[in-house]
Every structure is written in C-alpha cells, then in structure tokens.
C-alpha cells in the first residue's frame, strides 16, 4: 500500500509545487502508516529525482518514455493507473492544474476511486475520509466525504508548506507497458511561455484592469513585475478588449490563482474577479474609487491614481 503522488517536471526540473505535493502526500501517508511513492514521467536526472525524497518520498518510480511527451490523456492516465495498482495506492494525488485536472478523473474511473478536486487542506478525518475543497470558485469551501476505498485528489497550489525531511529514497525505473495504440494525440506545434514567470507558479502577481486605460500603459506594471520576479495578470475586460492575452486573465472564467501577494491596479473587483484571486494570502489594491469592491477583499490599499502610484512603487522596490 502507498500514497502515490504524480509529479511534473519542467525540462527535467521539478517545480516547488511538486515538492509541496510530495510533502502533502507524506503527511497523509504518515496518518495512514503507509509509504510514499512519487511517480515521475519524463527524462529527469537521478539527482533531481532524489530531491523528491527530501520532501518525504520513500520511492520514486521513473518512467522514461518519450511517447508520453505528446501529453495524451488516455495513455498517461493508463500509465498512472498502472503505477497506482503496482504500488497498491490508497490515495493518488495530482496537482490541481491543467494536467492534473485532465488525468485525475480518468484515473479515478480506472481505480474505481472517489475523486475530490481542488483540495486545499489535509483530510480532517480518515475513517470516514473527509477533505476540504474549494467550491463556488473560492467563495466557499465544502467538506467532502469519500465513500470509496481508493481516493484520488487534485490539490490546490500554495495550500501546504513543503517540509524537508531526512528520507532514504529509492529510485526505480518503471515501465507501465502502455501500447502504441493508446497514443492518439499528434502535437503539431508547442509554444512554451519563456522568459516570463508563470502566472500559476508566481508567488507575487501584478494585475491590471480597465483603470489602466489601454495596453500602452502596461510598461510600469511590467517593470514592477520584472523587479519583483512577479507574474502578470489582468481582469476580464482587459483580455476581452485584447489589451492582454487571455492566458493572463484571472477570475471566475479565467485562471484561479493563489499567490502570496496579489496586487490589483485599476481593478474594481467584481465578484467574478474576486473568485479567481480570493485565495491569495495578501491582496493589495490601487484604485481611484474608494467604493470599489476590491477594497473589501484587500488587506492593503491605496485610493488613488495608479499612474501616480506605480512610479513610487517601482522606486520603493528598487530601494528594498
């Protein structure tokens, strides 16, 4: 028996979030008195795989098979399910991101498991198994009871502090024996976002709304984001107007993010927008309108003109 964690690498490197997932899984495994297995699909050096042990993995299963690079959901979920069965996984944990959301439901069906997606905390009970998840796009939480022996969870980024441990980890090559006929996705083109901090990974997010008045006014926000190593985001009207790409849209129908700090410039804070950012640890808002609803969600605020404020903030950050 084990807790199985699906880890993702990025050009052979794990992100902090993978360590967070392993730590979270290790805490569950401890309660269940069973070991932790991390599954890594793709080419990752042994030293990098060993890092998963530092966060609580007892074993790493490494699948090194280029066919999985096409991100074929059917083939990948079969590989994960085979690993889960080989390890006798009681709980399988994915990230609540594009890939995790794509694979978890399929794996849950294969394992006849109960699925809870968007989990934000450790289970509050194990018999019965009860875990908390976000509902209504962050406007509420639900405690979900799973009535199945096996559980599949997708876990919300930035909800658990990774803990380092002294763990002896074994690295094993694993061949899930997925036949060629399972692969049906032919990738014609891949565009990776390079040189920018990924919005869903960013610890600080700088975001602009309609109050920024036009795409030509983003220079200050970009400079601030660069200085802080922050991700850039925008509100829905901004992406609808085409001022910024829709991959930057955060809110109910865009991306849901949970950075340590969300800084909103010229965003009024409609309920749909807040849904996408309300899990941020801190929110700072800069808006001309003192009645803007963003101030109800914000921890810090400036009632004022973003164009006056931004240069001062840039200066202050340079002095840090």
């Amino acid at each position, binding site marked *: 028996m084990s807790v199985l964690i699906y880890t*993702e690498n990025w050009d052979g490197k794990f992100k902090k979030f993978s360590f967070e997932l392993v730590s979270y899984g290790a805490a569950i495994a401890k309660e269940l008195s069973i070991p932790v297995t991390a599954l890594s699909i793709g080419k990752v050096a042994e030293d990098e795989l060993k890092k998963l042990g530092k966060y609580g993995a007892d074993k790493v299963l490494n699948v090194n098979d280029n066919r999985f690079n096409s991100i*074929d*959901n*059917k083939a990948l979920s079969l590989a994960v399910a085979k690993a889960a069965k080989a390890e006798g996984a009681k709980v399988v944990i994915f990230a609540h991101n*594009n890939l995790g*959301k*794509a*694979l978890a*439901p*399929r794996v*849950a*069906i*294969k394992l006849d*498991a109960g*699925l*809870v*997606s968007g989990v934000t905390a450790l289970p509050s009970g194990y018999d019965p198994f009860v875990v908390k*998840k976000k*509902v*209504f*796009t962050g*406007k*509420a*939480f*639900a*405690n*979900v*009871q799973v009535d*199945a022996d096996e559980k599949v969870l997708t876990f919300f980024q930035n909800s658990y502090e990774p803990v380092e441990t002294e763990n002896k980890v074994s690295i094993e090559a694993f061949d899930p024996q997925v036949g060629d006929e399972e692969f*049906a996705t*032919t*990738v*014609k*083109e*891949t565009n*990776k*976002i390079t040189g920018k901090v*990924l919005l*869903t990974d960013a610890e600080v997010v700088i975001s602009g709304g309609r109050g920024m008045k036009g795409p030509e006014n983003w220079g200050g926000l970009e400079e601030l984001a660069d200085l802080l190593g922050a991700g850039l985001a925008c509100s829905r009207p901004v992406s609808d107007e085409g001022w910024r790409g829709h*991959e930057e849209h955060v809110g*109910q*129908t*865009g991306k849901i993010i949970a950075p*340590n700090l969300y800084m909103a410039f010229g965003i009024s804070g409609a309920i*749909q927008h807040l*849904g996408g950012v309300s899990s941020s640890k*801190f929110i*700072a808002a800069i808006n001309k309108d003192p009645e803007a609803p963003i101030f*109800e969600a914000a*921890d*810090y605020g*400036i*009632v*004022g*003109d973003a164009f*006056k*404020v931004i240069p001062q*903030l840039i200066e*202050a*950050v340079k002095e840090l």
Partner: protein
Amino acid sequence: MKILVLISNVPDTTTKIRFTGDNTAFDSTGVQWIINPWDELALTRAVELKEAGAVEKITVGNVGRQTTEPTLRKALAIGADEAIRVDAEPEDAFFVAIQLAEVGKDFDIIMAGIEASDYNGSAVGGMLAELLGFNSVSAVSGLNIENGELIINREIDGGSQVLTIASPVVTIVQKGIAKEPRIPAMRGIMMARKKPMNVVSPVEAKAKTEMINFELPPPKAACKLVDEENAKELIRLLHEEAKVL
C-alpha cells in the same frame, strides 16, 4: 459529425453564496440559474462549427430534475438541435458521468466545460471519456474540423499546443474556445419551443463522494489604507509587515 455538449445548470455567477440547514446545503432562495459559462462557450463553438457546415447535429445533455429545463431551453434557443435530460439529482461527478455514458456513446465529439462554476469539480468530462473509452483533450481553447480531422488548440502548464486527434473524443474546453457566448435571438427562442426535449430515466449508480457541509471563508480584516502621495509606504508594509516581498 455529431456533437454532444454537456450542460451544467448553475447559479448565476454574481450570486451571493449562502448555505442553509446548519451549512449542509446551498441556499437556492432567489437564485437565477444559468448555463455554466464554459458550457455556454462550448455550445457557442459547436453552433459556429455547424454554421460552417462541419457539424450536422448538436445535442445538449444534462443530468437534472425538471427545474433544469429552462436552462436547456436556452441552450436550444442558442442553437442546439435537441436536448437530453437524464431525470435524476446530479449526486456527484461519478454519478453524472455514469448517466451521461448511457446517452453519449454515438457522438463524434463531446464538449464539456473545464469546470462547473458551482462545485468546481473539473471531473465529468474526463470521467465520461474514460467510461466511453474515448480519448480526451483538456484546457481546449480552439477547435476546428478540417476534412474530418480535429485540429485542437490547448493550453498546457506553461504554454500552448496545436494538435490533431481522431474522433470520437471528449474536448474539455476553456476560455478562448469561442469569443463571446451567443445570446439567443427571438427566432431561436421561438424555435426552441418546438425542439425535442428527451427525458430519460437514470441507470442504477451510487455516488462515491458526498459534500457533508460547507464553510464560508473567514471575514477579512479591514483594508489598511496608504496615502496616494506616500505610496512607498505600501512596499514597506508588504515587505516588513506582511513579509511577502
């Protein structure tokens, strides 16, 4: 090609979220029900593909009681040709997927929203694909059909891809799949009244999860305001007090 668009009936996204019965149930008093925003975008794209001649027929599918019919009628008014409603309470994603698998076998493309805006499950599309033995593509932001081949744009973590895949397939769609949701025209609303609303009985299935109770986020402390002329103070507070910079 035949498309099935899955429709979730959800509270309007501006709804103030409240619970009743000692926080065990969502309080639907006075709530306006709508087509889940992503499902609406999926349907819009399906209608566009039909108008372009690439699709013969659009069916919308839902698991719900009769109260969801106004939402399905709206989908018909937008341009779907028929609706299938499995007459059951949608207990959880697994239960819903089992029901939809009964009615979804004969479609070339099934479109599902990336999540429903109420319980944010992101589950039914993938589960349905698995149950039907179909492949699935997630975070789809573009869908085109050329000579019977599906050309799909999808977002991956940290980028985007263009891919091709054979039908049958479940596409789980997000923003970008259609520009704006289509608003039903008067003619569409009139026609929708005459379109088939097929009500089918559920098959036996047992939910695997149950939401036992709900919580609202803890109330926020009052916002600490900094003067516009002294904006540098904000950075100091974020650095020294909040410790996030």
